[in-house]
């Protein structure tokens, strides 16, 4: 699986960090999404997909 985030779209709602904290973080200074694992292991795929589904700004894409 490949995860891509678009920081320019992020509005800092924080949903990704709540459902997939091992894949996403928020930048300390402004809460904008930070990708921790571009290729998360299989056990995190469901969480990463849910994060993409929940993101209100459509800033997360998962492939595979």
């Amino acid at each position: 699986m490949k995860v891509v985030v678009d920081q320019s779209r992020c509005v800092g709602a924080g949903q990704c960090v709540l459902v997939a904290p091992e894949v996403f973080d928020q930048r300390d200074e402004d809460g904008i999404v930070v990708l921790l694992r571009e290729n998360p292991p299989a056990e995190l795929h469901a969480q990463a997909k849910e994060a993409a589904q929940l993101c209100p700004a459509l800033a997360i894409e998962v492939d595979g």
Partner: protein
Amino acid sequence: MPEARPVEHFPMSRGRCPFDPPPELDRKLRDEPVSRVRIWDGSEPWLFTRYEDVRALLTDPRVSADPDRAGYPSQTPGVKARRSRFKSFIGMDEPEHSAQRRLLTGDFMVKKIQAMRPRIQQIVDELLDEMLAGPKPADLVQAFALPVPSLVICELLGVPYDDRDFFHRCSKVLVSREATAEESLAAAEELQGYLGRLVKKKLDDPADDVFSRLATGPVATGAMTVEEAAAMGQLLLVAGHETTANMIALGTVALLENPDQLAAVRDGDDALLANAVEELLRYLTIVHSGRRRVALEDLEIGGQTVRKGEGLVAATDVANRDETQFPEPDKLDVTRKARHHVAFGYGVHQCLGQPLARVELQVVYRTLYRRIPTLRLAAPVEELKFKHDMVVYGVHELPVTW
């Protein structure tokens, strides 16, 4: 040819169950998912009721949240007057929206809010100590549901809590469906003046709070005027306590009416508690008069062609009862997978304060029913005064005993 239905007035009245959206909205979701409705100013925006359509509408870059655009379907005359006079990011489009919102995202991010959990717990415990030491029955709204989020948002923003009677009074007018444009504007101006003075004070004497950061940052550098900072503060202060206060009180009524669900919340682990908060947000959807937009060009949503300049209303309350997303949607079930509800809205305007609301509600629901296991209504549920007259739904008073 199918018979044309008359255009109905929106928002509709609720039916017998105080927790369910109006029966007419439920019918629309099933038989007529996109329809024209008539709002207070006589205009006829499109109403979208299906979950998928609501999400599509609220993420479409071809729609605007700017209340000054012709065709924008404002919620009330008061909301129209005040949003137009005191602009904040809730009524802006990109790129202005994100530029302003990003001044605040650092303060509302998950880890910052999680770090506030012990302080929120302390506030909750102290308020419960006071309520338990006082007379029975008590009004849970005044004793607990309103003070918890008011105190928390005041500390976060740097607003003196001693001034709460003043801003609670203003805030009540601002969320009333019945306030006139003049009344709403007067309340907004009073609050705006107060918050403007506060921003100026923080410029000279900053502390560790949001207003100080706005004052010493964008205001000091000239990127933002005092008036803009105060308008932003108004949004944060009102949204920060009105919504959560209503979720605390109305959520408690819903749980007391569903004792098995209350027991699950009280006795479940942290994961169940977090899920229960999402389910209560879905089930109650207290911001119940729809999210409003206007089309910037001709477009199609949910099979409906919409013309440029036509108003759009996303009915998030009934979208959260769409059975294609939530099986047995009218049932409160704290174990269901409910996190993808649209109670916080969707799209770039989705609630900035949602991490804070979640932590507050988790601490509140857990602590309240553990510390007062015998908590019960002190009046029949039929006699409670529900907030049919407000933009945010809830109860005006909640007599409880134990």
